[in-house]
C-alpha cells in the first residue's frame, strides 16, 4: 500500500505522525529537508514548550526530542527536499541519492513558517552583515554557539521579539533598543516593562526604522519618531516577527491558496482543495504557538483516519470581514459536528464578533481583540441547516 507522507518534521508533522500510527496506519513517512527532525523548537533554548500538548514546561530542544521520540514507528527521511507537489499528492523529491517521484495514499503538508525578511519589508539602507531574523538568531546562538553581533537593535514587539531578547541575554548580547511603529507593543503587556526592567532594553514605540547603515557590517540604524530622524549606533539588527507560511511550494501548484493567511485553503477536516492533500500547523497562517500547531496536526490525522469525509462540492465557504485579517478553515460542512473557526484581527479592536449565515447572524459575542491574540468561535452542532455561505465579521 502506498505510504501516507507528511511534509515537515516539526510539531504539527510529528504529532500527526504519532496520531496516524496510533490510529493504525502502518506506513507513515515524514520528509524533512534538514539533517535532523524536530522543527524550529530545536533552536529555541529557553523554557516555554510542551505546555499545551504535554502539560510540561520544557526547552525547545527538549520538546523537539520528545516529539521525535513519540513519532516512533514513522519513517523519518531527513535531508529530503520536496521540489514539487502535484495533483493527487504526487511528490517530486530530491534526496542525497538522487531524485524520486512519490505517489502517496495521502499527503499532510506541515511545512511550517518563517519570519518576513528585511528585504520583503522594503526596509531601506545598505546591505551589511548583521541583519538577521529571530529564527536565524536563535539557531545561531543555541545550535551554533555563534554571536553575530553584541549590541543589536530589535525590530518589532511581537511575542517572538521578546523571545529574541531572552536569546540575546543567554548569549551575553545586549540589545540597545527595541523598536515598534505602533503606539503600543504588539505582544501583551507587560512585555515592554519586562524588556525595560528585567533586560534593560528600552522599548521605543511610535518609532519607525528608516534605514540600516554600514558597509561590511551594520554600524547603525536611522529611525524616525514624530517626523524627526535620528541615528542609533548598533552592530546588528534583529528583524522579528511578521510570520508567513512557508508555502512557496504551493504557489503555481494545484492547491487553492488564501492570500489573507498566505497558506493553503482548508476545510474543517484540514483538507486542501485537493482531497488527497491535507495541511496543518503554521503553514496554514501566520504563526500560532507550537501547542496549537501540534493540536492541528493531531486533528488533521484524525480526519485522515476517517473512512469517509463529505464531498468537497458540499462545502460552505467562510470569509472574514470587518476588522478580521483572516479566518480559517475557509470551508466547513453541514453535518460535521461542532466546528471551531480561528481568526486574527488586523489591529487592536473592541467590538462584536459575529458569524453570519447568508446575511443573518448565527452567533455573536463582544470581544476585545489584539492582533497578537487568536480569536476562536465555535459553530454549534446542527447550526448550519440551509446555509450557502458564512461570514465571520468583527464589527
Amino acid at each position, binding site marked *: 500500500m502506498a505510504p501516507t507522507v507528511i511534509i515537515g518534521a516539526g510539531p504539527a508533522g510529528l504529532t500527526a505522525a504519532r496520531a496516524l500510527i496510533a490510529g493504525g496506519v502502518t506506513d507513515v513517512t515524514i520528509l524533512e529537508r534538514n539533517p535532523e527532525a524536530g522543527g524550529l523548537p530545536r533552536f529555541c533554548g529557553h523554557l516555554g514548550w510542551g505546555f499545551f500538548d504535554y502539560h510540561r514546561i520544557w526547552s525547545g530542544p527538549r520538546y523537539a526530542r520528545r516529539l521525535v521520540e513519540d513519532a516512533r514507528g514513522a519513517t523519518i527521511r531527513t535531508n529530503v527536499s520536496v521540489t514539487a507537489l502535484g495533483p493527487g499528492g504526487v511528490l517530486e523529491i530530491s534526496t542525497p541519492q538522487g531524485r524520486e517521484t512519490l505517489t502517496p495514499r495521502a499527503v499532510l503538508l506541515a511545512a511550517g513558517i518563517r519570519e518576513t525578511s528585511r528585504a520583503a519589508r522594503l526596509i531601506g539602507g545598505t546591505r551589511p552583515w548583521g541583519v538577521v531574523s529571530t529564527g*536565524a538568531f536563535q539557531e545561531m546562538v543555541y545550535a551554533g554557539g555563534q554571536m553575530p553581533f553584541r549590541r543589536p537593535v530589535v525590530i518589532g514587539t511581537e511575542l517572538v521579539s521578546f523571545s529574541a531578547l531572552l536569546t540575546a541575554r543567554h548569549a551575553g548580547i545586549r540589545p540597545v533598543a527595541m523598536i515598534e511603529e505602533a503606539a503600543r507593543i504588539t505582544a501583551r503587556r507587560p512585555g515592554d516593562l519586562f524588556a525595560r526592567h528585567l533586560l534593560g532594553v528600552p522599548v521605543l514605540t511610535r518609532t519607525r526604522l528608516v534605514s540600516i547603515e554600514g558597509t561590511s557590517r551594520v554600524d547603525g540604524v536611522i529611525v524616525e519618531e514624530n517626523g524627526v530622524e535620528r541615528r542609533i549606533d548598533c552592530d546588528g539588527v534583529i528583524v522579528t516577527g511578521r510570520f508567513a507560511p512557508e508555502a512557496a511550494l504551493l504557489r503555481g501548484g494545484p492547491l487553492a491558496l488564501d492570500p489573507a493567511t498566505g497558506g493553503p485553503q482548508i476545510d474543517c477536516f484540514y483538507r486542501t482543495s485537493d482531497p488527497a492533500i491535507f495541511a496543518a500547523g503554521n503553514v496554514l497562517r501566520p504563526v500560532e504557538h507550537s501547542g496549537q500547531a501540534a493540536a492541528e496536526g493531531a486533528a488533521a490525522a484524525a480526519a485522515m483516519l476517517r473512512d469517509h469525509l463529505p464531498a468537497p462540492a458540499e462545502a460552505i465557504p467562510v470569509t472574514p470581514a470587518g476588522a478580521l485579517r483572516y479566518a480559517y478553515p475557509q470551508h466547513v460542512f453541514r453535518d460535521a459536528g461542532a466546528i471551531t473557526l480561528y481568526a486574527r484581527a488586523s489591529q487592536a479592536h473592541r467590538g462584536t464578533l459575529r458569524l453570519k449565515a447568508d446575511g443573518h447572524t448565527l452567533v455573536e459575542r463582544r470581544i476585545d481583540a489584539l492582533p497578537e491574540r487568536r480569536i476562536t468561535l465555535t459553530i454549534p452542532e446542527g447550526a448550519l441547516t440551509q446555509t450557502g455561505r458564512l461570514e465571520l465579521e468583527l464589527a
Partner: protein
Amino acid sequence: MTLPSDAPYDIAVIGAGVVGCAVFRDFSLSGLRVALLERGADILSGASKANSALLHTGFDAVPGSLESRLMQEGAARYRQIHAGMGLPLLPTGAVVVAWNEADAAALPGILQRGHANGVQDVRPMGVEELRAREPHLAPEARGAVWVPGESVIDAWSAPLGYALQGIAAGGRVLRNAGVRGGTRDAAGIWRLDTAAGPVAARIVVNCAGNQGDIIEAIARPSPFEIRPRKGQFVVLDKTAYRLATAIILPVPNERTKGVVISRTAFGNLLVGPTAEEQPDRERAATDTAALESLLAQGRRMIPALAQETVTTAYAGLRPATQFKDYQIEALPREGWISIGGIRSTGLTAALGISAHARRLYEAHFAALPAFEEPEGPVMPNLTEELPRLWQQPGREEIICHCEMVTRREIEAAFQGPLPAGDLGGLKRRSRCMMGRCQGFYCSRRVMEIAAPHLPDLVAPIGGAR
C-alpha cells in the same frame, strides 16, 4: 620564465569589476605579467555587484558611438566563450512596449536606431503577437518593438570566470589592495602605493569604476568626472518568474531608460532600476519609497505582480560621467590606459572593452602575440537554466533550501585560486542566503562553513571581546 619577485608587472589593472576582470584576462592570456588590484575584500565589490545582469544587443545605443561598437563586440565574444566556460545565456529577447500614444509614436525611431546599430533582427510586434507572447502584460500595452537578441546572464560567474582565466594564464589578483597613489620613476616604471604594499608596473590600466577620476588623477588631471548614478532594484520571488518571458522594456526618455522587468538567471523576476544622481561614490542604499515606486510601476505593467512577494532589494552605483559615451584612451607618454565612464552597459561590453584595450596597447605600446581563447575553467552552475548540483545523485546535504545550495557548493566557494573574500563574495559564488527566506533557515549552517575563512562574521559565545 623566472623573474625576480620585485620585477615590475607588465600591466597593473586597477579595479576588479567586470571590466577590470576582462582586461586582466585578455592581457594575461596575451602572455603579459598582469596584476589586478582591487580595493575591496573581493572582486566585484563596486558597481559590478549590482546591475541588471542583461547581455544587451546595443540596439538602443547611440549609433556610431564607442559604446555601441564595444557592446556588440563584447556580446559577440561572450556568445563565443560562454558555453565552454559553463556560463549561462538565457535567450529571452526583449519587447520595448508602448503604453500610450506617445510611446507608440516613438517605436519607429527605436526600430530605426536598432537597424542603424547593425541589429538587423529588430522588428515591430503587433499587439496580438505581444499578448500571445506576454499574456500577463496589462491591457494598456498597445504594441512593441521585438529585440530577439537581448539576453539574461549570470553577472557574477562571468567576471569571476574571466579573473580565473587570467590567474590560470599567470596573472595575479590582489584584493584589499586599494591604490592610494603612484609615481612614475625615471625608467618609466609606475610605482603604485596600495593598501597591500607597493606594486610596480610598466603600464597602468585604470578600470576603477566609481573611483575612476580619482585614480585617473594619478596620471593626469582627469578629463572626465564621475557622477555616480544609483539604480535600485527589487527581486521578486521565483513564483513570479512565469509572469514575463521576454525582458519588458519601456520606451526610454531623455534621462533614463526607465524601469525594466526581466527574468534573472537564478529564476526570479527583477524590477528596476531607478536612476538617481548622487555625489556619494560609496553608499549604494535602497529606500522604501523608491522600492514601493518600483513595485507600483511593475504592477502597472504586469498586474499579477501584486500577488508576488519580494525576495530582496539592492542598489548599484554606475560610474556615469558628464559624457554620454565611454571614456577610453591610451596615454603613451604616461604609460597609462584610461577606461572610464562605463556606466550601465559594462557587463555586456566588458570583453569588447578588453579587446579594445589590447588594440590600444598594440597601437601605442608594443605588439602582442596572437590571442588564443583558453579551455575552461568550467564555472559552477548557479542558474536554473542548466543542471544544478542538488539535482545530481550524491549531492549530500542542502544547506540553503530556498536556492537549493549544497554544502559542497558553499565549501567550494572557499577553494581554488580566488576564494570568496567576504560574505558578498560567498553569496555571489554560491547563491546561499539569497533566496526568499534571506537566511532565516540557513544562516547558522552557512556561518559554520564560512567562519574558518571569514572569521569576522560571528564570534563564539563566551569568547573574548
